[in-house]
């Protein structure tokens, strides 16, 4: 009796103590950051962490909708001019006030970071000129209509202009790591930890944790073990095979949320011959995927519900387009294609392949959740409708280079790939994956299947030049409908991410897959 009473007292104390401040949190993530320089390497893994030390002009909330950041108001004042009103009274961690000059400096620094393996210049190159109207008003003149400017700016961190010559090493050491964000840099030990402390003067209110520690633990099993052992409070990327056991554990809370990542099959739909298709005797044949009905047959032969239930253990959502519902530019008129093996066989017969053909599907084996098993499941489903399909998977370091291929196009015929939409808009996958490849205007960069459709290209380009949000949204949905009708690629499912926290905490899932203390709720 006495024992249970004291437990109750402790529980109450914990709850009271946990409501506001005075808590530390340790978060384990799967990958190591490559630098603390916010402009050095554009990867989700770096951005989720540096985004706590710095702010952006606009922020993306948990569902990647734009919210005010350092700018409180924004909008186009002409087709190629945007105006932003800055937030007043924002200070950097060193006490100096944020001015328009810091913002100009940050965007100018972006393309000039030495050795940067993946620069943020993609998001600033459309800016022709930045005009500082007054202390709190800025205008951006762009190269032509640029409706995506606010979204693109929501990915670029604003640094202090007090350190004009700061190098990536200075940011790693912390001497230049001065931002306006909710947490301040304390230390960065490569491969080991990143420590941050609360910025009590944050414009959005003091954050709820005093100290935040990030630890990279790449092995899934070890990450789960660290949570079970109480070494860490939050983990990302709980493996699907562990979800059932962890759900029964009273010390662990799991949270799940759909991500912006679609897993899809890219089909070589352009070339006359495609490397991994032969007839049943092994002789080369014309590329059957040039025929839209063959592509459609493949889509119909795939049992998306079975992939979700069996391979993903229920932790995924069947997909019929490139982003889940609720995102900007998603079409309400597209249904998930129905599983119809009979119909698929009939379409193949009508297209001139009554006995099917032979095919090899390629996929990575260390990139997406259960990627290798998905490729195997798809191969079995295709074999069932008469396309004798073999599977070849490989590590991502080999896979992606070969999937992109050289000047003759991809080395593969049918490949399993994924796309996460960093901007949270349908324009991101549409322009990269489906627009006719055109290096001059920077479209179709990742169109590995070389799908090319004039009506689609025209609709998308119109969307990309439409500043009005409602109109653009309708055009993007329309472009998606065209591409899905012509089966430019075959979406299978949207990835669902799982976070684990110790009991007493809960994680609010983010569609951008970030793991941040600002999404942790103390209960």
């Amino acid at each position, binding site marked *: 009796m006495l024992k249970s009473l004291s437990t109750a007292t402790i529980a109450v104390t914990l709850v009271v103590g946990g409501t506001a401040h005075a808590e530390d949190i340790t978060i384990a993530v799967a990958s190591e950051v*490559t630098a603390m320089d916010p402009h050095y*390497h554009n990867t989700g893994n770096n951005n989720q962490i540096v985004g706590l030390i710095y702010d952006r002009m606009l922020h993306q909330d948990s569902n990647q909708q734009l919210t005010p950041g350092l700018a409180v108001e924004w909008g186009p004042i002409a087709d190629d001019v945007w105006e932003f009103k800055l937030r007043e009274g924002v200070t950097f961690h060193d006490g100096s006030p944020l001015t328009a000059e810091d913002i100009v400096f940050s965007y100018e620094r972006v393309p000039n970071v030495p050795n940067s393996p993946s620069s943020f*210049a993609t998001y600033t190159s459309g800016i022709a000129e930045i005009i500082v109207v007054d202390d709190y008003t800025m205008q951006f003149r762009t190269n032509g209509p640029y409706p995506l400017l606010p979204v693109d700016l929501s990915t670029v961190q604003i640094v202090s202009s007090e350190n004009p010559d700061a190098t990536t090493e200075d940011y790693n050491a912390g001497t230049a790591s001065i931002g306006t964000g909710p947490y301040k840099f304390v230390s960065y030990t490569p491969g080991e930890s990143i420590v941050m402390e609360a910025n009590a003067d944050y414009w959005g209110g003091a954050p709820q944790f005093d100290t935040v520690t990030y*630890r990279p633990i790449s092995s899934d099993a070890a990450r789960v073990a*660290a949570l079970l052992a109480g070494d860490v409070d939050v983990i990302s990327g709980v493996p699907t095979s562990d979800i059932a056991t962890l759900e029964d554990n009273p010390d662990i809370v799991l949270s799940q949320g759909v991500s912006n990542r679609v897993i899809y099959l890219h089909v070589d739909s352009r070339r006359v011959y495609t490397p991994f298709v032969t007839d049943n005797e092994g002789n080369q044949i014309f590329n059957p995927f040039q025929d839209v009905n063959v592509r459609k047959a493949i889509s119909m032969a795939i049992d998306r519900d079975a992939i979700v239930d069996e391979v993903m253990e229920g932790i995924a959502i069947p997909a019929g387009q490139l982003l889940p519902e609720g995102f900007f530019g998603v079409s309400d008129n597209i249904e998930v294609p129905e599983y119809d093996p009979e119909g698929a066989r009939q379409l193949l017969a009508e297209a001139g392949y009554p006995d099917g053909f032979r095919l090899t599907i390629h996929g990575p084996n260390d990139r997406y959740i259960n990627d290798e098993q998905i490729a195997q499941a798809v191969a079995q489903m295709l074999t069932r409708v008469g396309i004798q399909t073999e599977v070849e998977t490989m590590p991502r370091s080999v896979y992606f280079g070969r999937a*992109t291929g050289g000047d003759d196009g991809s080395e593969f015929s049918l490949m399993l790939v994924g796309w996460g939409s960093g901007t949270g808009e349908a324009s991101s996958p549409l322009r990269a994956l489906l627009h006719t490849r055109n*290096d001059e205007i920077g479209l179709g960069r990742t169109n590995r299947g070389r799908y090319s459709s004039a009506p689609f290209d025209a609709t998308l380009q119109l969307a990309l030049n439409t500043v009005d949000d409602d109109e653009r949204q309708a055009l993007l949905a329309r472009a998606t409908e065209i591409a899905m009708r012509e089966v430019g690629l075959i979406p299978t499912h949207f990835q669902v991410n799982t976070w684990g926290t110790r009991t007493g905490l809960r994680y609010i899932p983010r569609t951008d897959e970030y793991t941040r203390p600002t999404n942790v709720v103390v209960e």
Partner: protein
Amino acid sequence: MTVFIIRRLLQSVIVVAVMTLLVFAGVYAIGNPVEILISQDATEVERAAAIARLGLDKSLPEQYLAFLGNLLKGDLGTSFVFGEPALQLVLERFPATMELALSAMLIAVFIGVPLGLYAGLRPDSIGGRTIMTGSIFGFSLPNFWQGLMLIMFFAVILQWLPAGGRGVRGEFLGIESSFFSWDGISHLILPAINLALFKTSLVIRLTRASVRETINLDYVKFARAKGLRPRRVIGLHVLKNIMIPLVTIIGLEFGSVIAFAVVTETVFAWPGMGKLIIDSIFQLDRPVIVAYLIVIVCLFITVNLVVDILYAILDPRVRLSDQKA
């Protein structure tokens, strides 16, 4: 002896040169790191710029010659991923790996030799048999699985020790190390045991076999007949003679423990070189891979040299200049 060492060093230079060439060609054949590093939103122009920035637009021979030129100046290149000097990245993580390797080898020697000695002297006793059976487990259970079981048992169920990571370092005589703080040691125990299990089994089996062989030799019998105490017979005559194979194996294994602690470092999230190299291989970070392998080759060469010199000390019949190593 000096001639021997000089010849060894010259051979090492050739080994390093051949190794770098192989790694260069190998990584080049696997693929282009820019495909993995660059953001998916990047345009073709930015992609080309990134390739040029990393020097990957040149042909393979050009890249290799540029590398050799820099190597002569002591520059092993800059990491594609981290943008920092590759050698510095590797050396930064060297102490963590050294701590782990040293602890593991100490455990292997101080547990393996006495147990092996016991099993060799009393091969038919229950204790001796138990030790030998136990050592089979050390051999045959996968390292990775052993590590997870250690974590499950000591970190998750008993909660005695942390599940991974490196603890707060203590300082002693200006040297910072996990050995000098309780937190550091508590983080070190599980990974060190994990890494030591296989080596301990190896040392046990080797010691036992050598003891069984030596114990029946004439000089041991003679020493006994002379009436020397068993402690002296074993401690001096037996032990000193079984040391040669042991030192060879311990030396080689010490090198391999440093170089290939990848599994343990991954399971325990230990921020050592093994974890760095595996991540670098996944990302095709060639400068780091090359720098790491150069460090490892140098390490093996040093270890082998030390082992050879130890031979000469342990066994006066060995003369280094005679060896065509």
